[in-house]
């Protein structure tokens, strides 16, 4: 059980899709943790002959299953920051026709999408599928610092320490949702945190 139904929201909140095989000369698949399941669902032997998979395991054991797909290139990285240079290198040499597939957490998809967009692929042409954790990558609008893996609302900014509430307003450029001070008009009055989707 790793598919989550996100509640309907405002137009800036990303809507994740379901991966489907598309025609194209080559394929780049980037996934973390349970995102591997989405790749396993969409992979065909024909496609894998021209596919580069970049997988961030985050402690899961999907890597061996992905290897059995026999992709043209396979890389397993310990974390997203450790993999980002490789992603940039692959995109810098790519040609028009490359298909990009992203699967896993919102944080991974958002950041990898940013790299693909910076390389010249419009965000509308990049496929996504959410799997696994629903934790958010949040940007503090006040100090600009990013806090990863936010599951509770409100939460404390890991950089400046302000109490922030979790908005659905999302920036593709930051690959993050916006966090705004919750007690600005009544300092110290911070509601008890609860799960973002509770």
């Amino acid at each position, binding site marked *: 059980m790793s598919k989550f139904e996100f509640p309907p929201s*405002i*137009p*800036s*909140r990303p809507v994740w899709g379901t991966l489907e095989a598309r025609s194209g000369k080559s394929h780049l698949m980037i996934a973390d943790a349970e995102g591997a399941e989405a790749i396993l669902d969409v992979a065909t032997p024909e496609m894998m002959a021209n596919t580069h998979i970049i997988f961030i395991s985050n402690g899961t054991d999907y890597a061996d299953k992905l290897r059995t797909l026999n992709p043209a290139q396979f890389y397993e990285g310990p974390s997203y920051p450790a993999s980002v240079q490789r992603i940039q290198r692959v995109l810098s040499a790519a040609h028009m026709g490359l298909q990009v597939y992203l699967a896993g957490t919102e944080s991974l998809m958002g950041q990898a999408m940013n790299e693909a967009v910076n390389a010249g692929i419009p965000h509308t042409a990049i496929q996504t599928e959410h799997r696994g954790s629903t934790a958010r990558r949040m*940007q503090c*609008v*006040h100090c*600009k610092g990013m806090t990863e893996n936010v599951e509770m609302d409100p939460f404390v900014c890991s950089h400046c320490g*302000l109490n922030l509430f979790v*908005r*659905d*307003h999302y*920036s*593709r*450029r*930051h690959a993050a949702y*916006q966090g*705004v*001070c919750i007690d*600005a*008009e*009544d*300092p110290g009055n911070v509601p008890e945190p609860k799960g973002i989707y509770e």
Partner: protein
Amino acid sequence: MTIQFNDETFRDDYTFRNSDWAIKRFPFPFHEDSYMYSVNMEQHKGGPAGSVYEKRFDVDEHYVSEMRDRAKVLDEDPLRCQSLPHMTLAGWDLLELIMESKSEDYPDLFELHRDGNKWRWINKPLGIDDTFTFLDESTLPYGPMEYITRQAQGDYAVLDQRDDMLWMDAGMITTQADWSLDFDIGMNFFEWHAPVPLAHEKGIFIRALKFLLNVQQGAPARRLNWTMTVNPLLDTSPEHYHKWGIQKTELTAENIGQKQHLRVELQTFFRLPRSNALVFPIRCYLCSFQDLMTMPKWGRRLHRVIRDLPVELATYKGFIDNRPLMIDYLSQFDDGLPTSPGIWPDRETEPPLQK
């Protein structure tokens, strides 16, 4: 007329004041006794003499002090002015539009001398006399958009037009109604308006986008928007909300007339010729409640509008907690008499307050 520029502040001791002239020409945003969103666009082709509609880019008594405030904001946080790399050409378009307009509309204050691409720009109120090469960034102290918008009142959102959509790809945003350029840059029209309640459901943004995509060279458009601000604070940014938010709680029955300000945005839209981008200047005018009440028509109408505004809008505009206080104050200026249609104060024809 020659404008007397005020020496005033929009922070800390808040010495901002409107002269009688500024109150009389304040762009009161309500054309009737109630308010709901609409695509209230009209051509931006002048207006009554002396009104804020008359010139393409209005210059008023707050000009010099507003520019000083902007420079302070940028010193503290340069992210308030950003331009994605493909928007430089649009920046030059904007520089040309503002220099041409201001030098033609205010020849006593601004001069533009062009000899091919060698341009000389004189801004007398700010004491600037610069010579530079048009389309050559290396000849200006800042990028073209930043250079000219450090010399022009109001915020500037510069929108790229692609695939039948507008994209917020550059801007100078220091006097905003609580939205962050740094966060919203790169978003499309529907995305950066996402937090606005009710309007999406009413199809307002679909119609507005269709209109804006078709704004053509030589045919600018305009509309008014509004919100509320406690104290004449220009920089109501989300970045600093944790610092200024508390001021909203300092309103009392005694100080509301002086502290509570109606904040009006004169939004204009110009097609930029070389880039085919659209510039969206958002000019902010502030007026205290007590100054507004000097116009009997505005007193009657503001009370009715604020009293009857849907809860969602009062919440979004950030004054739901202060609304009861506002209504108490404003009701003193509403005698129930009918008001004339339109936004103008009609000082000569509207009866004085009957209570």
